């Protein structure tokens, strides 16, 4: 069981690394989801794979029944799943907005924040005055 779990985690991380290296943002996002799944399985495995006995305290006793499953990894994984879902949902909406704005979901097509041919970014809030750029600044900015 441990071996199967380890191999699964390894395959998931490998797939995630491959997808995260893509320039296509939705692929990167799927890579993140896979990486989160691998992390959750890893936490689960770190708590040791034991019995299927639910970790509940019987009425009238004050301790877990002997041989119960470890409850802590379950709590951690549950938290991590919720957080990972929230992050993935936000990132998906962001990628959709970016796709709408740039007409592409590939990261190399997005150059608004760091224009490649300009040392300084655009200033969206204020209409540009006629840009009088001193010659030396222009030279160094290029």
């Amino acid at each position: 069981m441990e071996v199967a779990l380890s191999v699964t985690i390894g395959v998931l991380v490998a797939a995630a690394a491959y997808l995260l290296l893509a320039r296509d943002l939705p692929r990167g996002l799927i890579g993140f989801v896979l990486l989160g799944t691998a992390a959750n399985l890893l936490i689960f495995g770190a708590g040791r794979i034991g019995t299927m006995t639910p970790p509940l305290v019987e009425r009238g006793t004050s301790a877990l029944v002997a041989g119960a499953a470890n409850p802590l990894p379950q709590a951690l994984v549950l938290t991590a799943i919720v957080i990972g879902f929230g992050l993935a949902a936000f990132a998906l909406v962001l990628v959709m907005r970016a796709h709408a704005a740039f007409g592409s979901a590939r990261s190399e097509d997005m150059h608004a924040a760091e224009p490649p041919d300009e040392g300084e970014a655009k200033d969206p809030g204020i209409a540009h005055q006629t840009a009088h750029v001193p010659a030396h600044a222009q030279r160094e900015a290029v």
Partner: protein
Amino acid sequence: MRQMLLVAPILIPLAASAITALLWRRPDAQRRIGLVAAVLLFAATLALLVEVISGGMVVGRMGNWPPPFGIALVVDHLSAAMLLITGVMGLAVAVYAMGPGAKERDRAGFQPLFHSLLMGVTGSFSTGDLFNLYVWFEVMLIASFGLLVLDRTKEQLDGGVRYVMLNLVGTAFFLIAVGLVYGLTGTLNLADLARLAPDVENQGALAAAAVLLLISFGAKAAVFPLFNWLPASYHTASMPVAAIFAALLTKVGVYAIIRIFTLVFAHDHALFGPIVGVIAMATMVVGVLGAAAHYDVRRILSFHIISQIGYMLVGVALMTPLAIAGSVFYIIHHIIVKANLFLVAGAMRQVGGSFGLARLGGLWTTRPLLGLMFLIPAMSLAGMPPLSGFWGKLVVIRSGLEVEAYVLASVALAVGLLTLYSMIKIWNEAFWKAAPEPAPQPVEWSRAQRLATFVPIVALGGVTLAIGLWTEPFAAFSIAAAESLLDREGYITAVLGPAAARLVEAMP
């Protein structure tokens, strides 16, 4: 009472975030509540710092579960200082955010997100549990995602994509490291980890988990070589957002590195000291060279955040009391100075019409007060005496010389010189050079907006001057913080109690 003080820095922003979210359609009421919450947060963190200085470390058990089973909140000197500075920054930015653009920001949801961000930051500084730290990081991250793309411009979407993608990977690494640490030690409480880590059989696997943590915190702190997201995104945010990001977000990463590597992995210093030292040097150099190449005020300042992070890591690299005291002092000084520079940059654009140095000019003749308010943090950042940055650099460099880390000390000195070059570049272009033709049109703003902009700038400038001219208490506090960080036994006993060993045997 102590327990109330402990949770107040988390509860106040939580309440503010919830209330302002409920008042979604009433931006004016949101703004007022946000300001009140910021004042309360400042007062609570100040009281907590006084309590820690007078009465020592404050430890709280959430739900009254005894550590290491429940989540512990632990506030020592470093945490208390970071909390107070969060309170100061929260207040300064809450006031500044009432300046130009407040209406648009508040309608887009600035207030709920801003207070969630503060809650994530204060939670990260207070917690004594590794998994809980992960949760606070996420709270902070998701709020920062929203704040970064508040205006939904093309620039922000592009910067946001870069910021979000890298941070997503960083958090996944954090989670994997948490899993490994738990598997190796069976605990997530930091004090318990500190107690058990030296005796773990498989030290190689523990070191691997530590490296994963270093990568994840390093990505948040924007250290070399994980800094690319910062200059790609910070300058696109609106100015109050950029200021609070510059002040707090990267510093949470630095705080986590200091906390984890002085407490849990201190026994492995022979391995991690040199690694962090090389990272620190590379971070200083890369940041300052990046800044030298740019002509947009915001981007110059963004690159300087990176460069200054290097100084803060010197303490972890050397692990001497003086070096750690230097790091603590440097963080305190830097947060105030850096946020203030971003606030000044916002004011410069307001009166000069642009962030681009080429399009600015002549501000010294028209706005001498703004010039003065720029000079204080700028010269402090470059380390000119008698301002706060000088003392920070002095302690860092001296701690390097003391342990004969001459390369580190000379890199720190050279980077200081290059920082001065960047600051003088802004000064020459924006303030001294003749105004470009045609003269830039200042943006119209009301008296109240001007007041909201300049009150935080002047106040933070005053704090910088105070730290510089009246250094003694701040230095003494930094040394006390360093001593408490290096006293691992004290931390473990304060959290777990003397009878800790017996409790742990009962764990599955």
